[in-house]
């Protein structure tokens, strides 16, 4: 059971950004997708989620064998894919608690009981060290960077997806906030969830160790390996990978 990305070509505004990406994330696995700014990481995350800004010109996105290439974002979400946004939108006028209840209910046949929802919310807020007052605020409206990321991970915990894509969840966080967020993500790991951590830096990987590391450059995955690849990157930097690729292409 997994998310399969096959030969994905994506364009926006007449420019191709992804030039044939293949990636499989199975339940129970943690993957890290690393790459410098502008390499296409966020495009991949948003294309997995179905952002209408990006046009898929070739390739497929499958979840447990079902073709989701043409599916609307809400269908993908209900099928079990979740993305934590790098820059989540603010939703003025809608409280965190109301938003969460709506989102939880969207994925269910019958509305969740008030008591059950309350218990689930409290449990996850404890896990993420979130003040109960937080849930009365309008979602992401006037939130600090750290609060936004926490709200994203709270949603991840509440929605319990089978595939989680974390887009630069570590960016803009101080060390304490990073630890809380990373601990939260870690606590959610298990056989029922596959996680794709998208990051520029290796620091979140000090808290969560991926089994698989993929490096993306200029819209292609150029190297893949185990956790040692992240260490190598930490030592040598992206220029090293870039040079290596250039050399391999006879450049």
């Amino acid at each position, binding site marked *: 059971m997994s998310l399969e990305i096959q030969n994905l070509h994506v364009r926006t505004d007449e420019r191709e950004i992804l030039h044939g990406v293949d990636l499989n994330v199975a339940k129970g696995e943690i993957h890290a997708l690393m790459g410098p700014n502008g390499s296409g990481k966020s495009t991949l995350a948003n294309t997995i*989620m*179905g*952002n*209408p800004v990006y046009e898929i010109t070739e390739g497929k996105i499958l979840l447990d064998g079902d073709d989701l290439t043409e599916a*609307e*974002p*809400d269908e*993908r*979400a*209900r099928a079990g894919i*979740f*993305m934590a*946004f790098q820059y*989540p*939108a*603010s*939703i*003025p*006028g*809608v409280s965190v608690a109301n*938003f969460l209840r*709506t*989102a939880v209910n*969207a*994925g269910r046949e019958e509305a969740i009981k008030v008591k059950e929802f309350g218990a689930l919310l409290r449990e996850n807020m404890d896990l993420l060290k979130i003040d109960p007052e937080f849930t009365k605020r*309008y979602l992401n409206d006037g939130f600090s960077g750290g609060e936004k990321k926490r709200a994203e991970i709270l*949603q991840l915990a509440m*929605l319990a997806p089978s595939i989680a894509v974390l887009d630069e969840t570590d960016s803009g966080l101080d060390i304490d906030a990073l630890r809380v967020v990373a601990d939260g993500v870690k606590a959610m790991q298990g056989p029922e969830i596959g996680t794709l951590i998208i990051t520029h830096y290796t620091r979140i990987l000090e808290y969560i160790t991926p089994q698989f590391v993929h490096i993306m450059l200029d819209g292609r995955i150029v190297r893949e390996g185990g956790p040692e690849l992240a260490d190598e990157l930490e030592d040598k930097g992206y220029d090293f990978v870039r040079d290596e690729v250039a050399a391999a292409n006879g450049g």
Partner: protein
Amino acid sequence: MAASFAEQLSERRKAALEIYEREPVPTWRRSGFWTTTLRHLRLDELEPRHYEPVATFGDLPATVTEALGDEEPAGLVVQRGATSVYSALDPELAEQGVVLTSLERAVSEHPELVERWYMKRLSADDGKFAAATAAFWSGGAFLHVPKGVRVERPLQVVYLIDEPGTAQYAHTLGVVAENADCRLREYCLAPDFEGQALHAGAFELYVEAGGRARVAHLQDWGSGEVYDVSEKRVEIARDAHATWIPMHLGGHLTKQKLDIITAEKGSDMRHSGLYFTQGHEHLDLFTTDLHEQGHTTGDTVWKGALTGTSRASYEGLIHIVYGAQETHTYLQTHSMLLSPKAKGDAIPSLIVKTDNVSASHGGTVGEIDETQVYYMMTRGIPRAEAVRILVEGYFEPVVQRLEDESLEALVRARIAGKLAEAEEQVVEFTAQRASA
């Protein structure tokens, strides 16, 4: 004394009638492209309709009880067509000297109070419909909350138009005396019907020194061809406060001028409004935040949404007169287009005749933010529901200013109902925008 004001009133009605007969049916033009015209109104086919009074709250027409809820308000005056059909006030409030009755009755029972305030801020010589109201009003509503009396539960006034062919001339006069405090809700309601009707209304409320009033207007004339041409004023005296929240949730054509006046030092106002237009509705609002003295404060926020081929124009003026230094006020207006064929205007403007004030304003006309819709969809929420939540969330800050749970619930439900009616069209429109 009583006879003399009644006589004076009939003289004033005669003078207003002369103005009415002299004045043409107006057309309002602004900036060359926005026109509000009454040329489709067949005024001579409309007439005041009279009804039998009802004995109990439960006997009121369903349009009224559905809006007001099951519980009888602390005080209520209901005008159906041209007739004041029901009037009730909690005896405890009456004992404290609170008056809530038809204006007609107040003229004979409290002439000295009515005389003191009647049309202080309204003029019969303000076009055909202001004259019509001054000449022809019947029934009406009169509220007086005496010095120092606080009324917690909302006092309520209803204008109901039941059937096509009705011309309703309405006049509400309210006075909140020194250090008194109350809430007033005024409803303008009609069931859905086919045909024309007119509501020409006057509303004036005076908040005396140290007093506090929270006023809500809820207009829902239904889907009939109801024209609403009204003038409304709220005047706030020294160290007094008024919160004024007009809500326009239905009306074939609405042309209203609303002025909120901080008339003396230390007076403070909050003015928020909302509108939701649909179908072929046409709404034209002009509000003035008038500061006549210094050391006054104001805060105006209006929000609207448009569906169908509706038109809505909101123009909000901040006017600070010469010498009104140390005035601090602020006005913002937003209009959200939910249909490619709707047209909206949000125009803030400013006249400042003195120095040492802060007055800021802003206006936007926009659409649903597609990044917000996408974000919500990624949480499994279908587009239609995401749009509904966003529109409700957009209005929510204004709705919460009501600080009145049952009315908030009613407004939310009516907005949700209107959105549901337009759902298909709104979803299609935003989806097109998303992939554009």
